[in-house]
């Protein structure tokens, strides 16, 4: 393809993509303009005030840190909890899918624990873990009274995030492994593959799309859990904390800015992972 034609193709691709996005923008635009035009009669702050907050994300707000700082704290908490959920949940789910004995051994406890909201465990985890943060765990006590991200990563908080994320990972992985077509396993067996080889080269790649779906669900859940958890006692940082604190101080401009950020990050998480899944062509493992 010539360079010109290529450029043309890229341009039409871009145009098509933009065009497909346009219908989705109708309702948000409508809502925004309603807010803009009828603002004087509402209890909400003017859109401009919220925009001001959003446009200066590194400014200290309500003396509890900037938007950047608090968003960062929440994100790092989620990332940590999520990685624990993934690292523990994937092998557990995999074994539950691959071995009937292991599934019978663990299914009751997972069925009992799964519907238990992580938020319900927050008070208990504060009692158990107190406000122990990573600073203490890593033995960096001299950092305890400085402003440091490690101080904000409380073990109890990470624990309930891992709790919230681990069950989607376990269940989806288990379903994925159990759903692998029997003929693939039999084919591998008659072609001379041993148990470990089948685990690695058949069961795992065949269930990868489901495992990935589990990760996506886990990310979504963790993001919801962290916001709720930060609004409760046990921390004084994070975007959820900022949301509640701005409410207490009746700073609705900050509150709306927080809500906006939470929504956008949620969108980025779910769409981003979706695109990543397609990029890796994990869908290839699906039956066509």
């Amino acid at each position, binding site marked *: 393809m010539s360079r010109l034609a290529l450029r043309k193709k890229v341009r039409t691709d871009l145009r098509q993509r933009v065009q497909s996005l346009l219908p989705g923008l109708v309702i948000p635009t409508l809502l925004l303009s309603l807010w803009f035009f009828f603002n004087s009669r509402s209890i909400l702050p003017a859109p401009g005030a919220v925009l001001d907050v959003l446009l200066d994300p590194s400014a200290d707000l309500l003396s509890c840190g900037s938007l950047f700082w608090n968003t960062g704290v929440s994100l790092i908490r989620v990332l940590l909890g999520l990685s624990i959920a993934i690292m523990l949940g994937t092998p557990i789910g995999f074994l539950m899918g691959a071995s009937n004995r292991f599934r019978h051994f663990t299914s009751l406890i997972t069925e009992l624990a799964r519907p238990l909201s992580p938020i319900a465990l927050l008070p208990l985890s504060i009692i158990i873990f107190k406000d122990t943060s990573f600073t203490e765990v890593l033995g960096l006590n001299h950092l305890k009274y400085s402003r440091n991200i490690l101080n904000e990563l409380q073990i109890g908080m990470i624990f309930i995030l891992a709790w919230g994320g681990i069950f989607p990972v376990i269940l989806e992985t288990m379903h994925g492994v159990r759903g692998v077509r029997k003929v693939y396993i039999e084919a591998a*067996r008659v072609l001379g593959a041993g148990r470990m080889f089948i685990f690695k080269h058949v069961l795992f*790649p065949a269930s990868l799309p489901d495992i990935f779906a589990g990760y996506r669900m886990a990310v979504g859940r963790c993001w919801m859990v962290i916001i709720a958890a930060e609004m409760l006692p046990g921390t004084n940082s994070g975007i959820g904390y900022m949301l509640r604190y701005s409410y207490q101080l009746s700073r609705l401009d900050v509150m709306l800015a927080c809500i906006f950020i939470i929504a956008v990050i949620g969108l980025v998480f779910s769409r981003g992972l979706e695109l990543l899944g397609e990029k890796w062509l994990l869908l290839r493992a699906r039956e066509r």
Partner: protein
Amino acid sequence: MSLAFIKLEKSYSAPSGKSFKVLGPIDLTVKNGEFVCLLGPTGCGKTTLLRIISGLEQADSGKINRGAGRLGYVFQQGALFPWMNIESNVMFPLKATGMAGSLCRLKAEEILDLVGLYEFRKSFPHELSGGMQQRTALARGLVTGPDLLLLDEPFASLDTRTGINLQEMLRNLCRKLSTTVIFVTHNIEEAVYLSDRIVVMGHRPGRIVRDESLSLEWPRNRLSSTFTEVLLSFRQTFEELVDLSISS
């Protein structure tokens, strides 16, 4: 690899608790290098027999004497791994036995060349036609240079022309590699075209009703009178079998 069954029997238990006898007793001896077709109507237990030989299922009673050696297996619908490209699919049995990567690739390329898929080695199964997929499955079954190749209706889902091409290819490859072959099919013409020997199975329970070595010469001509004669004689056996199963 030579193979012998002695009084092989197999039953399944239905969900109702009743037990169904699907096989046997079956006595059969296959000589080294022989190309045997197991021919029979659907549900006569020929696939079960194949699965017992390969070790995917156990017989209830009786004995199988199987010589030592490598096994190749080709499934009805290919059962190619959709997440692997053609080359990786073909390399799978080699890697499973712990062969080094570069040697695996060399062997895979060699066999892919033989089945005419060398240019497609980086494609994925869903990107190929049904015939090409089955050729890949053949290559995967043959890549280890097996002493015994088991095929379960490998060409049943293909159109006639493609099927005939693949039959020829299979026959040539097996002669070249002097593999013992057990080929399961319900297609009489396919059986007569391919085999040194045809074993016709009847059902309820699966048993051998006719066992005959073919004296047809190579290359076989589907339009010759001797070919048609043999074909007709097997068709007759088949018709009788089906009549029997309807009246019973």
